[in-house]
């Protein structure tokens, strides 16, 4: 073990001699190179997202219409606020982390412990927030109809505001129940049934002249989705294939399925980084408490895990921009 643990800054950190290349200890330099490679991984993902977004720039979902929830404010249209809160939580946990590193430089064990604890709590809150964001996205808000060629049709009222399926669809009596594994052959089952059948939606649409539909196509002048008047809408609804509520990897009531795919993958990959960051922070936190770094004479390990934690914050800054702002 002794060969791998830096016991003092003056001793050999590199097995080849006491010259430290680039003026950094082995661990710190390798952390930087790991961060570099991880940054390139994330830019690969975000670049692929950008490619698809440019490819479908005339019909990509508008983030402001997708992420509109805020805790305890039901039915209130609150775009951006929740993700802004998440951003603040992560930035603040970055601040407490850098304060812990700073306290480590002064060999102040009590302060390092306190700030590490705050950082862990911040990371846990962020993870919980992300789970809530996912939950809202998966459950959906309004519900929509998917056409045979995969396009999504949403419903709007006379003022052009999007409305939920519940607000105009009348449920007819239906014998159709969800096929579960315990109701037939044990290895076949189907996904949860949408709350309304396609027929109910189309019939209710015909009965409500005040309701019209909206396609995914964005008008470049107003940057809003195109609304089709009620009397022309049946051309679209004759092509309808199924009712879509919420988003998953196969369909997305807000528009392009690719949007859901990239959202789940990139925020999921980032969330996994946050999770591993929290776990590493917890390990270092207990090492601080039992005095490992006090005995070692320096808190460089806190600094190294801090680098990783700030990197996670850095990635979120870009995810925030490309998924929610631009």
């Amino acid at each position, binding site marked *: 073990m002794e060969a791998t643990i830096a016991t003092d800054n003056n001793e050999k950190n590199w097995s080849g001699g006491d010259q430290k290349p680039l003026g950094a200890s082995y661990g710190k330099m390798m952390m930087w190179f790991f961060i570099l490679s991880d*940054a*390139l991984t994330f830019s690969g993902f975000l670049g*692929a997202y950008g490619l698809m977004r440019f490819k479908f*720039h005339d019909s990509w979902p508008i983030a402001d219409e997708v992420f509109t929830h805020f805790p305890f404010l039901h039915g209130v249209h609150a775009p951006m606020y929740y993700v802004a809160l998440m951003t603040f939580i992560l*930035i603040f946990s970055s601040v407490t982390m850098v304060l812990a590193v700073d306290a480590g430089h002064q060999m102040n064990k009590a302060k390092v412990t306190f700030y590490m604890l705050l950082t862990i709590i911040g990371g846990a809150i962020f993870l919980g927030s992300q789970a809530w964001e996912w939950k809202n996205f998966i459950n959906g808000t309004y519900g929509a109809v998917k056409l045979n060629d995969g396009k999504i049709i949403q419903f709007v009222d006379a003022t052009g505001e999007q409305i939920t399926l519940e607000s105009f669809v009348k449920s007819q009596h239906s014998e159709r129940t969800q096929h579960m594994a315990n109701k037939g052959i044990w290895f076949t089952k189907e996904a949860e049934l949408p709350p309304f059948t396609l027929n109910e939606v189309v019939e209710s649409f015909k009965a409500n002249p005040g309701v019209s539909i909206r*396609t995914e196509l964005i008008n470049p002048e107003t940057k809003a989705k195109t609304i089709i008047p009620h009397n022309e809408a049946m051309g679209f609804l004759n092509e309808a294939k199924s009712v879509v509520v919420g988003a998953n990897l196969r369909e997305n009531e807000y528009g392009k399925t690719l949007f859901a795919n990239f959202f789940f993958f990139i925020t999921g990959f980032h969330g996994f980084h946050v999770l591993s960051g929290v776990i590493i922070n917890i390990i270092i936190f207990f090492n601080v408490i039992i005095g490992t770094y006090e005995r070692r004479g320096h808190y460089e390990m806190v600094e190294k895990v801090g*680098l990783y934690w*700030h990197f996670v914050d*850095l990635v979120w800054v870009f995810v925030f921009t490309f998924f929610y702002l631009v």
Partner: protein
Amino acid sequence: MTHEQEHTSHTKLIWKVFAILSVITIVEVALGIIKPDALYLTKFLGTSPLNIIFLVLTLVKAYYITWFFMHMADEKKSLRRAVVWTSVFLIIYLATLLLLEGSYISDVLGPLTKWNY
């Protein structure tokens, strides 16, 4: 590593950087919610001025996080360049190629998509 530098506290600087990052985030969120027509519906350098503002503010935030939270400012020039120049070059290269390709596919396939039924 200079030891005198390490033992002085940087608390003031940290809170200053936090204030800068918070102000930038608040400006971003405010612009994202209001979306002023003059910035959102006009075109500048191939996209809306609002998007350019968001991109610039994001890069400013990335600079502050890397330089002051990750202490890149205190590292040797050689380490800094090995990490920053490499990533900046490769990311700009990749993004340019992918986004050019994306708009090309859009130009070719966009007119073929059926929007009237």
